[in-house]
């Protein structure tokens, strides 16, 4: 066989997947998926959660063997039995969750498990020197002796990229690489990827964000329900075509792209008012720093920001799970700072936690039981402490049809539902109580587009009915689509608050990266 020139992009693909099928029992995760990667190309994989992107990626990384189908490496049929095989073939993975030991240095992390560094006593110094050279060559600006825990998230991601390059990867697979980054960090990542391709690296870029894909990729393959729908050249395709390929129908732009928000009715006393709420953790760190804002009935107050800047603490303090170390909280002018979770629920505060699987739902219980969780102690679900099973079931049946929860029935365990339907259960539980205040965190994280639409509509309708909503989300698009006012949280403090109409994307991006306007 002849070696194909890397310069000739039209010729032989460096990597090709032909009709790959992966089954987990009766579930078909990949159904005759095909796609190809040309040398020096950035090829995006676009699809909703559960569309099969992760499975395809695991096949390429050697973590899974397809039940059917063939993998071609520069035209040669190949089988990866393990990660070592795919790594030897020049494929490097950058996972969404970094595989780094935080207490070790960059060079030590790269040396981990690397035979060429020396099996028992790795030559860290040599690895460090080589890393420095490689880092300069690609403009990564990483110090090999820096401790990983001292690096920012963006820099840690670069360590992961450097690690794969050091191991000789010429095909990089990045799984949702921008999910954890600020807008500024995202830009520099995209720049880095572009420069890598100029030096001959080919990249598979997994994302569900159209804007990024458009900004960087040459081609995009859309996956839906485990099938590869089609591959498009980006310069010949418009957004509407891509979105409808991804979700299988035309989007309803009115919701997802809505900038029209419900106008707050002005009341003398706001529904919810925070006065200098602060939280100090056990080690004495201030995790929430004197937060003050107020929300009117019918208003959606959005809190934007990069993950880990105090959002969890804010939601916990509002819901009563955590006590504030200073400040006060008023509901309709009444101080509720000293109330516990149950009392706040009774007084009309609803909370949809950010992590539906570990803090929101009880996965091993049924849909009906989860829906009953907050109100099980009162009629009609129980009388004098005795459960009314029929009422619990009735309640669930009503909510399931009202909120379009896709399930086999009220007795199905929540664990078995898709992420979107789990989220619907959680939101429905809050909404059906007709709360006066809704605190909702990351309502659409890991949720497919169809469910996103449904969830956004629920939040808008609830606000229209007069509920004050505090929406905490790391998805800036989501906050901008729903909120009438937007605040940016950074390092536990609110950096700035804007009326939706005055929002400037550049400024807000700077705020999210910690720079005041």
């Amino acid at each position, binding site marked *: 066989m002849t070696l194909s020139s890397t310069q000739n992009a039209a010729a032989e693909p460096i990597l090709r997947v032909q009709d790959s099928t992966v089954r987990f029992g009766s579930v078909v995760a990949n159904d005759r998926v095909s796609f190809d990667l040309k040398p020096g190309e950035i090829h995006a994989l676009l699809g909703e959660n559960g569309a099969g992107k992760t499975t395809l990626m695991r096949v390429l990384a050697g973590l899974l063997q397809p039940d059917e189908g063939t993998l071609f490496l520069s035209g040669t049929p190949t089988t990866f039995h393990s990660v070592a095989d795919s790594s030897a073939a020049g494929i490097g993975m950058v996972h969404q969750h970094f595989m780094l030991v935080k207490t070790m240095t960059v060079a030590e992390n790269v040396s981990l498990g690397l035979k060429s560094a020396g099996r028992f006593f790795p030559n860290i110094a040599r690895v460090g020197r080589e890393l420095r050279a490689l880092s300069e060559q690609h403009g990564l600006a990483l110090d090999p002796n820096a401790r990983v825990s001292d690096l920012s998230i963006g820099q840690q991601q670069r360590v992961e990229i450097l690690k794969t390059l050091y191991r000789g990867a010429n095909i990089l697979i990045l799984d949702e690489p921008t999910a954890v980054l600020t807008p500024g960090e995202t830009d520099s990542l995209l720049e880095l990827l572009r420069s890598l391709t100029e030096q001959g690296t080919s990249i598979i870029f997994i994302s569900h964000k159209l804007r990024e894909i458009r900004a960087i990729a040459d081609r995009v393959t859309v996956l839906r329900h485990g099938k590869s729908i089609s591959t498009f050249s980006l310069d010949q395709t418009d957004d509407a075509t891509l979105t409808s390929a991804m979700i299988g129908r035309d989007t309803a732009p009115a919701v997802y792209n809505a900038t029209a928000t419900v106008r707050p009715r002005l009341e003398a006393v706001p529904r919810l008012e925070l006065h200098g709420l602060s939280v100090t953790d056990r080690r004495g760190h201030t995790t929430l720093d004197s937060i003050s804002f107020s929300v009117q009935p019918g208003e959606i107050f959005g809190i934007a920001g990069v993950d880990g800047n105090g959002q969890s603490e804010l939601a916990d303090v509002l819901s009563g799970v955590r006590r504030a170390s200073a400040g006060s909280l008023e509901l309709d002018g009444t101080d509720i700072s000293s109330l516990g979770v149950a009392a706040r629920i009774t007084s009309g505060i609803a909370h949809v936690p950010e992590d539906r699987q570990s803090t929101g739902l*009880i996965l091993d219980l049924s849909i009906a039981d989860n829906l009953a969780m907050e109100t099980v102690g009162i009629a009609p679900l129980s009388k004098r402490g005795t459960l009314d099973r029929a009422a619990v079931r009735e309640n669930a049946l009503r909510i399931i049809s009202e909120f379009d929860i896709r399930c086999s029935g009220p007795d199905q365990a929540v664990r078995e539902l898709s992420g979107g339907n789990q989220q619907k259960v959680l939101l429905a539980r809050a909404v059906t109580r007709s709360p006066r205040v809704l605190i909702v965190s990351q309502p659409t994280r890991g949720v497919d587009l169809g469910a996103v639409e449904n969830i956004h509509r629920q939040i808008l309708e609830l606000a229209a009915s007069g509920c004050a909503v505090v929406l905490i989300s790391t998805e800036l698009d989501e906050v901008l689509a729903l909120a009438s006012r937007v605040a940016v949280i950074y390092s536990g403090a609110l950096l700035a608050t804007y009326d939706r109409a005055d929002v400037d994307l550049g400024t807000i991006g700077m705020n999210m990266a910690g720079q005041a306007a």
Partner: protein
Amino acid sequence: MSQTPATSSKPAAWRTTVVRVTGGVEFWTIPVAILLAFIVGGVLMVVAGVNPFDAYAALVNGAFGTTQHVADTLIEATPLALIGVGIALCFRGGIFNVGAEGQFLLGGMAAALVGQALGTAPSIVTLLGMAIAAMIAGAAWAGIAALLKVYLGASETLTTIMLTYVATYLVSYLLNGPAKDPASPLAQTAPLTSSGLLPALLPGTTLHVGIILAVVVAIAAHLFLRRRVGGFQLIATGLNPVAARSAGLPVRRIFISVFLASGALAGLAGMVQVAGVQGKMIVNLSPGYGYTAIVVALLGRSSPLGALFAALFFGALSAGGASMETSVGVPASLVTIVQYLTVLLVIAYTAFRTLRRPSRTAEGEE
């Protein structure tokens, strides 16, 4: 996509296994595990040069062969069931109370002391006083561990074990000192008067009414879990305390309450042994009931009725095992091997299933 939120804590692997054992095991696995354990036990007997069929025949005879043997089985099952139901409730709430042994001993001690003080009162008064005192003593001892867990975050596994040591030595001190029967050289209280003894259930045997108590308690606990709001909240808390708390459930109160309930039941079991079997408090009141009951609760899949049946099974093995030793010469410890092997097999199967569980949610949550 996110850092783990500070408020969520993943339950330890063993906790997950315990919770899974509660509901995740198909019922058929238990008879299969029992059968396998008996086969292994039989192989051990062959190695030891004993005919396993003779030995198992003696075992069955010792457990059910005569009315007295049935009585022995029920008598052995009673404390295991009472304690086991309490531990099963704890497991359901995600609490690993392994200190029932100490709670049991203190219950027995308190019952004996009250029984002596009320020795001349009518039987109903004496017995009620003994039962209440025993339940308070057991609950108080468990309550220490509960408060340490809820307010200081101390692991109940450690504290309950440590408290059992303290209880054992406390009882030993009392029985060698202030509470000792001056007429006896042994570390025991003076015998209870007849008003402090549990009445017989079956004339001609030693069976006392304790077994009725155990059955009533198991059914009450079963109905509590199934029908009561408290039971619903207990189960939810056990499966995910973080989510339960965020849904407004009084997680601390639930932890403390279930701890107290299981301590009270262990204490009550101590009273039943004192008033129903020994007729006095003795320093060796427990041949390890508090520990065996943990295994009973596990084998009963942490359901109260399951624990009751597991206790009957263990009671039969224990009564039959003693008879196997006396008539065939097989060491009774072999029966202990069969008991624990059964539970080990059930747990191993559960762990195996947990590992093999298709990670569907992982797929949906990229």
